[in-house]
């Protein structure tokens, strides 16, 4: 009898705890969810990624680019092309406050680039410079929770006042279990669906979640770019010095 009471108490307390957790999650506001998204996506201290970009046109013809991307925190990012040969060595540095540099090996010159370039295509891919920028969504967008189903939160993100972007809004699907964004719809200034990014092969590497395959599709151009991570390293203690003009040309 005593054992039965103890079991009942334990089960009851477990139910209470689970209910509390569920209640807490249920109470999460859109901005809290977005904050969690930022924390998950930018969780590593730094990232050292080697990736393949496959450009696929409407006939299904493919072209490939390979690049190395290093990121520290959520504000510093450097990307360097390994292939194709015509773009080898071109490197892009993104720093806080919209400070961006492009290294052009053919001219042996690092050029400061202004923010007008942010909404143009990055090296012919369907990602813009803005998409490639290291950023925290919660700093640039106001979020609204549209829906929550069994597995996902669906958020609507609208740019905050003063934020320069070509997108009127983003609709983001966020996994409820780990707060990793799995799909983002991008709407243009006319509020038409313009691009869709989907993230697949979401795996835990060490302590962090990452998508090893993602795809950006431009619905107007009927063109898409698949991004496949070949090599992933987290927390390699990348020095701040890497994210400088000094390293851009190396």
């Amino acid at each position, binding site marked *: 009898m005593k054992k039965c009471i103890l079991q009942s108490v334990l089960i009851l307390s477990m139910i209470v705890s689970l209910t509390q957790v569920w209640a807490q999650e249920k109470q999460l506001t859109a901005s809290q969810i977005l904050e969690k998204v930022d924390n998950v996506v930018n969780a590593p201290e730094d990232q050292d990624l080697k990736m393949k970009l496959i450009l696929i046109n409407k006939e299904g013809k493919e072209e490939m680019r390979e690049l190395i991307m290093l990121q520290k925190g959520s504000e510093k990012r450097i990307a360097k092309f390994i292939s194709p*040969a015509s773009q080898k060595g071109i490197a892009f540095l993104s720093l806080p406050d919209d400070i961006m540099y492009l290294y052009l090996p053919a001219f042996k010159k690092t050029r400061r680039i202004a*923010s*007008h370039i942010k909404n143009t295509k990055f090296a012919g891919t369907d990602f813009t410079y803005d998409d490639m920028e290291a950023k925290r969504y919660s700093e640039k967008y106001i979020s609204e929770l549209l829906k929550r189903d069994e597995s996902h939160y669906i958020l609507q993100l609208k740019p905050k006042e003063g934020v320069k972007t070509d997108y009127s809004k983003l609709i983001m699907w966020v996994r409820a279990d780990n707060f990793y964004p799995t799909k983002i719809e991008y709407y243009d200034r006319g509020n038409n669906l313009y691009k869709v990014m989907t993230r697949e092969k979401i795996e835990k590497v060490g302590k962090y979640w990452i998508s090893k395959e993602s795809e950006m599709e431009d619905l107007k151009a009927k063109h898409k770019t698949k991004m496949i991570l070949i090599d992933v390293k987290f927390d390699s203690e990348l020095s701040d010095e890497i994210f400088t003009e000094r390293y851009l040309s190396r």
Partner: protein
Amino acid sequence: MTHRVFLLTAIGLLLLCFSCHLLAQESEGSLVKWNGYLQTENRLQLKGDNDFSWQEYRLDLKTEVKPAEKAKFYSEIWLRSFGFPTVQNSADLLDKNKISPLNLDFREAYVDLYGFLFNNLDICIGRQRIAWGTADKLNPTDNLNPDDLEDIWDFGRHLGSDGLKASYYLKDYTFSLIYIPIFTPAVLPRGDWASALSPSMELPTGITLKNLTDTIIMPKNNLKEGSITGVKISKNFFGYDFSLSYVYGRDDLPLARKVTFTPTSTPGEVNIASELIYPRMHIAGIDMAGAIADVGVWAEAAVFFPEEVKMTTDLSALGMGIQESIALDDRPYVKYILGADYTFKNGTYINGQYLHGFIHEKGNDNLEDYFMFGLEKKFFNDKLKIIPIDGGVEIKDFKDIENNYALILSPEIAYFPVDNAELTLGIRLIDGKGTTAFGRVKDKDELYFKVKYSF
């Protein structure tokens, strides 16, 4: 002989490249990497007999070796079939170099050592291009490497210089020190362009020219005469990049300091012999780059402090004595450039620059004004690039623009059929008055076609 040396060098280089390639295949992640491109270019004159004005087949080979994290070797070589057959007699037919002129251009070869002695110090030793300035292709502060004006339309091209560059990084300051021990003159443009960039010579009334010869007086190959030194400090202030620079060097384009007139047997006809030098000068520079709203902006200025060059005109053989004048006075003069660029929402890119003082101009009274502009747009996921507007306006005298202007328009279309391949077709239209540099070659309108494949 030259041809044989060239061939042996070419074979050696190709073998080196193939062995590098095999090495790369043998061990993944090999330290040796090589790449490059093949570029062909033909230009056809649109006026007169529609002669070809340019023929170049260029094989660019780059080698990069990173034996350690803190060291890098880099080299770039051009192997070229350049120009047209120069056969004049049957004996020339035995000389392959006259049938198909070949050319080896050793562009760069240097070693980078990062964190040398101190963690914050990088040095670069060898033949290298040191590109200073924030403007687009035309940089008044870019005075370390000699100008390579072989192709006048390839603005901003310079030769590499054999020297040492040391860069020290302290917080967000960058200090650069450059030392180039031997002076190298600029490469002058070919054909009509050489005269377009030279000051026009006025002969005394009633005198005609038969022959013009010149002698170049090169600086001595010692540290005092031949060396070039440069320093630069760079820093970002409030989101704008600034740098201050100083160069003690020489003008890399020659300047006449003595002209001797000698009469020929024909009355009123003379031969002229001139003596040219490369004036010493101090050059202080400043540049900036940043953005105002979304518009990219840049500015660059260089103050030139030249040595005074006196000009002797020896007319004694004509019974007119010797005249002294000033070829280049020692008053400082300023060349500067202001520019901006912007990309519209639809992807159209525009770029505009205002330049005071072109590459070849020197002295306060000889600096002209140039407005450069460009507009380009890419289509079909960057497969097609159209540049409907590209060119510039040269104005020699704002008070009399009608008689002192030149206009250059160069629309272009580039198609990228597959990765690494680029086909370009363009046209250059020039109009203007003979008083201006570009106006002097107004009859040289041309059509050009380029093919480039990178590997």
